């Protein structure tokens, strides 16, 4: 009797044992964990953000907001293009940085690279990192963030003045910003055409690079 059922039992056991490995392979974010996602302006290619995504739902983000910041993310439903809607929430509203230690961006911008901006046939607009401008608002509905005129509220200080850019970016991400992500492999460079912000032509250049950079 036992001998009769043994092959079936072994087959079932092997299926169960392989299940975790298959689940890991099918995680569209698997190559993000422990590595660095870099976002850059869709037109000017300027380095705008670095994200260290962890499997436990936390992340560290830096770029344009002086220093690193912890946060947590939520994953929305898979979209028709196969990507996930990933919503980022910074756990901080920023720290008080003495003026002497504040980041500045000296020097004139470099000319655009021969790639994206040139192919777009226009000069790169001087603008904030994707989706995080100080003077515009953003709405998030069903794991999709849209920024621009008529959306949300501009990021303002207690006196009603627009926040400095770095603080505005932090405020935006504290409230939550959703981006399509996932499915890419380590070493890939791609253009995301569904950026929440209309600046940079609504595009992001994206890179997935090894390790923490």
């Amino acid at each position, binding site marked *: 009797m036992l001998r009769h059922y043994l092959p079936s039992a072994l087959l079932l056991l092997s299926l169960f044992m392989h299940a975790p490995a298959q689940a890991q392979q099918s995680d569209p974010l698997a190559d993000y964990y422990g590595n660095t996602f870099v976002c850059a302006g869709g037109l000017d290619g300027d*380095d705008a953000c670095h994200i260290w995504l962890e499997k436990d739902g936390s992340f560290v983000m830096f770029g344009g907001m002086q*220093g*690193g910041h912890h946060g947590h993310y939520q994953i929305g439903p898979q979209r028709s293009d196969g990507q996930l809607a990933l919503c980022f929430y910074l756990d901080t509203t920023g720290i008080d940085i003495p003026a002497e230690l504040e980041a*500045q961006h*000296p020097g004139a911008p470099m000319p655009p690279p021969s790639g994206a901006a040139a192919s777009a046939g226009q000069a790169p607009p001087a603008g904030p990192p994707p989706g995080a401008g100080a003077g515009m608002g953003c709405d998030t509905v069903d794991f999709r963030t849209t920024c621009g005129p008529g959306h949300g509220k501009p990021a303002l200080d207690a006196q009603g003045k627009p926040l400095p850019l770095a603080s505005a970016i932090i405020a935006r991400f504290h409230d939550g910003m959703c981006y399509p992500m996932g499915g890419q492999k380590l070493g890939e460079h791609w253009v995301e055409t569904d950026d929440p912000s209309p600046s940079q032509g609504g595009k992001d250049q994206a890179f997935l690079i090894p390790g923490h950079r």
Partner: protein
Amino acid sequence: MHTLTGLLMLTLTAAAAQAADPAADYYGNSLLCKAQSSGAVCDLWLEPGGRYAVFYDSGQKAYVKGVQGDFENEGRTGSYTAQATHAGLRLCLKPDADTPPRPAGHSPALFHEAGCLVLPHHAPGELWTLSFGGETYRLGLINGR
């Protein structure tokens, strides 16, 4: 009486733990630096257990040229040891990976490579000056992250 003894022991234990961990002031806070010649900035986090992360913004409009990058923003992680000395906190860093050196003009290089340096004693919020690698930095331990 027992309550007083308990409180005293609790206080002593907390004080001993603080003394035993010379990097305790850094946990949950940010050690910010700014290179005086270039304006580039950095942000160092020390975690309990000997892990660290450091974030740089070179201040240059560095366009991303490829997966290897020539990034305006850079970060790295690694492990550290900390030791209290008369001069301050002797901090030895060991990055997780040998990433390319900072491109020319992309300072700061502070906390970038493996090595040790001494951070003088300063209260949180106090700023001070440090010379490293031919560059002068202003530094400050700032509350929060």
